[in-house]
């Protein structure tokens, strides 16, 4: 009992082949789109790798790039095959390759689906990487004289300006670290020395934030220093003031940005997967109908196309037994002490060989 059998006339077969040729070329274009999306994501992640801790998140864009390239190659081959399928003589060239091609493409579409799901699952690893990375970046904000870290101040400042955020979870993160380098602290002043001594780790902490936290929408000039001290500024109350600095934390801002990109990419990959699956179904129908035509012998006749020749259970059983016998071919047959050359008499009814010459001939020769 074939699965989803459909009758194909010659014209329908030809039309199917032509449509599949066009669809395969469209799939090549979607493969290129997948490749460029993967490249774009890789570039975006690399741009801010200073702010991300050493977590392996590059596997997602790498996977997308690989899937995109393989999709291009597979669909290019598929287009060529479908182009040749209109002519049944050319089909003979591809006959033996088609079934392995379909099986490979089926497993490839599974990879595409895995790629789409990975896009959505990267969220948690990214959050972890950003949390650690931002914490490190803010700690080394003041170290503009150390090679390897001298650009972190510039990176963090431009990040806070561009993404309109402040600190890791909020602006209060800046109160817990020393973000002014010792080179610019006047150690001869009493207040500076007092502040350093009042802290267990000898850090110069204050309730101030860098200028890049300033909100451009604020109606008043930015208050960066003594933020929690209401009396230091005229007509100012820090509990109700929410337009002075950026309220969002940079981890959340970056996460939202990347999640937005990943969701768009994930959606595109899912649509590509559905498209690939439909093209694969069409190619399978084309292959089975052309093979049946060859079996019938008349190239212009009607033929059946199906997805699976027998039902799903039987196909699964036959494939499993094939895999099992592949494994068994290396095992030794213990019936004849392992010697394959011993003659085992056949038990079948049919007899062949000199013993089985009919009696008439014997009588003639004798």
């Amino acid at each position: 009992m074939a699965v989803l059998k459909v009758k194909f006339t010659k014209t329908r077969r030809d039309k199917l082949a032509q449509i599949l040729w066009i669809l395969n070329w469209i799939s090549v274009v979607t493969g290129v789109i997948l490749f460029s999306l993967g490249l774009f994501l890789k570039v975006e992640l690399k741009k801010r790798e200073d702010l991300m801790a050493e977590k392996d998140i590059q596997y997602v864009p790498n996977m997308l790039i690989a899937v995109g390239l393989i999709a291009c190659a597979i669909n290019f081959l598929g287009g060529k095959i479908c182009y040749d399928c209109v002519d049944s003589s050319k089909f003979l060239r591809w006959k033996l390759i088609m079934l392995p091609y379909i099986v490979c493409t089926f497993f490839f579409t599974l990879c595409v689906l895995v790629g789409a799901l990975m896009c959505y699952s990267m969220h948690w690893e990214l959050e972890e990487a950003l949390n650690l990375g931002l914490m490190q970046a803010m700690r080394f904000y003041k170290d503009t004289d150390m090679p390897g870290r001298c650009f972190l101040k510039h990176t963090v400042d431009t990040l806070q300006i561009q993404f309109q955020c402040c600190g890791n979870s909020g602006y209060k993160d800046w109160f817990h670290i020393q973000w002014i380098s010792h080179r610019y602290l006047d150690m001869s002043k009493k207040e500076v020395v007092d502040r350093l001594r009042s802290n267990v780790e000898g850090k110069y902490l204050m309730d101030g934030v860098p200028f890049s936290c300033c909100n451009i929408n604020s109606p008043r000039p930015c208050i960066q220093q003594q933020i929690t001290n209401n009396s230091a500024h005229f007509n100012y109350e820090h509990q109700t003031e929410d337009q002075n600095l950026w309220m969002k934390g940079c981890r959340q801002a970056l996460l939202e940005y990347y999640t937005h990109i990943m969701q768009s990419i994930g959606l595109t990959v899912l649509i590509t997967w559905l498209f690939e699956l439909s093209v694969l179904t069409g190619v399978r129908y084309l292959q089975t109908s052309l093979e049946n035509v060859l079996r019938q012998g008349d190239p212009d006749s009607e033929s059946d196309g199906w997805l699976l020749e027998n039902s799903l259970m039987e196909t699964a059983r036959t494939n499993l037994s094939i895999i099992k016998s592949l494994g068994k071919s290396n095992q030794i047959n213990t019936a004849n002490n392992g010697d394959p050359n011993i003659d085992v008499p056949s038990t079948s009814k049919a007899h062949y060989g000199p013993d089985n010459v009919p009696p008439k001939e014997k009588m003639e020769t004798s």
Partner: protein
Amino acid sequence: MPFLSLKFNLQKRVKLAQGLWMLYWLAVIVGIILFSLGIFFKVELRKRSEIMDNNESHLVPNLLILVGLLSCGLNAFGGKLCHDSLDPQKFSRMKPMLRPYMLLCCGFNALLLLLLLLCFLMQFAVYLTLAEGLKNAIRFYKDTDTPGRCFMKRTLDMTQIEFRCCGNNNFRDWFEVQWISSRYLDMSNDVVKDRVLSNVEGKYLMDSVPFSCCNPGSPRPCIQHHLTNNSAHYDYDHRTEELNIWSRGCRQAVFSYYSGIMNSIGTFILNSYFEVAGDVAGLKYLSTALETMADPENPECESEGWLLEKGFKETLADLLSKVKTFGRANQVEEGGASPDVAAT
């Protein structure tokens, strides 16, 4: 003696017609690009019209949009002409339209040249508008409670951050205006009162700049206040410090941005001018080649094509005499009877 004449056989005519058809459609694409450049430039001007006092001139982008649309229309018609020129029936129908069409194309080319000139000259207008607009923007920076100006602070902060500049000519422009609103000044404080009174116009002036002037590339946290007072900050010399705040003025920065856009557009217009001129020349050759066919029934015959029927100087002399007679048609002839009297 025709000017720059060439011999054409059937193959050459067909090739010329096909090549011209492609060139005309390329010119249509060029027209679309001109149109979109005009729209892009208009949007860019509108985005920053607040720092230009809202009276920037939109002449160049409007003309660009018009020229782009005209170019599309004219060149599409030209392409149709070329396509039909090889069919003698269609060509005879199109013949009367050829001369006015080519005159129209020459006029369009003159318009392109005018636009090119405007692209380079209007930069002066942009510069002056920017200077005036930025001066006012800095003055109204503090008026975040005045309707119509409440976004000036935001716009100017964004401009200074985006273009990496500070003030009009340089950061000292901020020292001459009060950029902190009186709403946030504690008038009961003696220091504040002294500063306000020390000034003739009663303005609260100080040697500080807004935070948007800060350079993120500076190795030390930004010094915004008491900029000229070396002793107010540890290890600071304002004469040698150049990384602390942006040293460029916003007028210079924004102007170089717009100047870059206008120069690129001017270069593109120059290229399209040459393309359209080439198209007109090609069409002239094609039409004369088709008109001078000795035997219209036989498409295989040879013919001659030219740019001008007579030599260059002769054509010029002809044109001048035509212009003169055009002027004289309204004058009365001296010492001669009127043509009506002579006829009777």
